[in-house]
């Protein structure tokens, strides 16, 4: 194909978009709508994921040590926990610090409750705060830490605590949201594809005659296909660009609104973090859908 012919296909493709007037508008609109819904769901899933991740990462295992544990023993236990492959971080919080943390956490309400406790009479045990790499392993790691008591006759571990039940429930919920979200997004993408291929098929049906004439004057299949290809890509690009613009504007507005409300203990994943990826994904998908739709629809008309 010469460069001039390529330009001709490009020009014809663009002309066709305008020539088909309302059909093009219909195709573009269906791409806008499908990709917009798709985008909303992707954003929802991304935010739920990030929220879930945040919640996950707050899950800690508190390992309370028995009161008879000395520094050397404590060091041994800490090393043992640190050496577990699932564990990412172990922090030692001594009883003094523990009392201080509790006072801070309870604030004014706790003044009465904690009154009279001094460093000498501190009821809080020394604690090892354990963070794990993969939140879902929490209960398994907790069990392993409890088992450490079997190694040492002094029973250095008094108690192991984590948000039992709550954690498992949280994981179940986040996993469900992720799975449903992805299934939904996949389904919508498929639906958008069929919708668009159908719209383009109608456009092509209207030009059946035109294609027949092209073949009669000796046009090759590639020559006939190219302008439709360009047309599909253009419609896809146009629809996805508008869709992305709408989506991002809306998201930005939502982000600002939530950011202004200081009482909300929640923030959206910033647009700058996901914008390029999501925008690229939407544009790519739009073009692919358009091209796929036009190529699929024209195929059977070329067998004249």
């Amino acid at each position, binding site marked *: *194909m*010469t460069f*001039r*012919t390529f330009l*001709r296909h490009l020009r014809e493709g663009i002309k066709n978009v305008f*020539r088909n007037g309302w059909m093009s508008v219909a195709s573009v609109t269906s791409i806008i709508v499908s990709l917009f819904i798709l985008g909303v769901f992707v954003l929802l899933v991304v935010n739920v994921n990030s929220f879930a991740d945040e919640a996950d990462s707050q899950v800690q295992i508190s390992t309370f040590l028995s009161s008879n544990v000395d520094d050397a023993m404590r060091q041994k236990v800490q090393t043992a926990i640190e050496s577990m492959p699932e564990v990412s971080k172990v922090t030692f919080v001594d009883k003094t610090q523990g009392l201080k943390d509790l006072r801070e956490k309870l604030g004014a309400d706790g003044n009465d409750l904690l009154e009279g406790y001094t460093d000498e009479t501190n009821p809080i045990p020394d604690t090892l705060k354990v963070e794990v790499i993969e939140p879902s392993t929490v209960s398994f790691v907790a069990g392993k830490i409890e088992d450490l008591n079997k190694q040492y006759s002094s029973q250095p571990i008094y108690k192991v605590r984590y948000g039992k039940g709550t954690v498992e429930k949280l994981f179940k919920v986040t996993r469900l949201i992720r799975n449903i979200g992805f299934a939904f997004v996949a389904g919508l993408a498929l639906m958008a594809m069929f919708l668009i291929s159908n719209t383009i098929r109608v456009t092509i049906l209207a030009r059946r*005659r*035109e294609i*027949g*004439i*092209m*073949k*009669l*004057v*000796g*046009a*090759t*299949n590639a*020559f006939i296909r190219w302008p439709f290809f360009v047309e599909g890509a253009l419609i896809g690009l146009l629809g996805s660009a508008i869709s992305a613009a709408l989506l991002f504007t809306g998201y930005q507005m939502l982000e600002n609104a939530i950011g202004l409300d200081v009482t909300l203990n929640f923030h959206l994943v910033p647009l700058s973090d996901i914008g390029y990826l999501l925008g690229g994904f939407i544009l790519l998908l739009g073009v692919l859908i358009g091209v796929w739709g036009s190529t699929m629809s024209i195929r059977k008309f070329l067998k*004249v």
Partner: protein
Amino acid sequence: MIEMQDVWKTYPNGTHALQGISVKIDRNEFVYIVGPSGAGKSTFMKLIYREEVPTKGQISVSGFNIGKLKPRKIPYVRRNIGVIFQDFRLLPKLTAYENVAFALEVIEAPKRIIRKRVIEVLDLVGLKNKANRLPAQLSGGEQQRVAIARAIVNNPTVIIADEPTGNLDPETSWEIMQLLDEINFRGTTIVMATHNKDIVNTMRKRVIAIENGNIVRDQPRGEYGYDF
């Protein structure tokens, strides 16, 4: 030029459109194909420009073995054959000029040459001053002239005309016939299916009559031979 050897065509529904036709048409001939409706005339024409493939037998058109042609090669054979129909088959959204230019764009001719050649043929068919009209803005005869211009623009060796005057009044029909005659005179083979008794009997050419899928008559300067 065009040669058929024992050509059979059976459609999937069981119709035997052609039953063992053998014929030879030489370069520069002008041939009328006549016969009742449904006798196989259209199939005969379609086989030449490879819209249909023979069930049996051999067809060669300007050296190409049409029956055994790879689909990829079909466009290149068609560039050598101009086709004209009763219903003109112009692209409705393109002007007369663009319709004719289209046949050259397809073969990727340079723009300069397209311009020159399109104006040349539009002049030949007498439509140079209506080049920028859309088909809807032209009369039936004028539309057929555009179709003829498109058929001859890349100098085909053969023109296949399937009832080119079928939709036109007698006077316009004669103008179209004179145009085809002139194109034939300039060296293009013409195969024309027709129901027009007056034309066949007045402008005497070779006549091939097809009935029930067989050639029943082949006369050098023949007559129409039917009463309809």
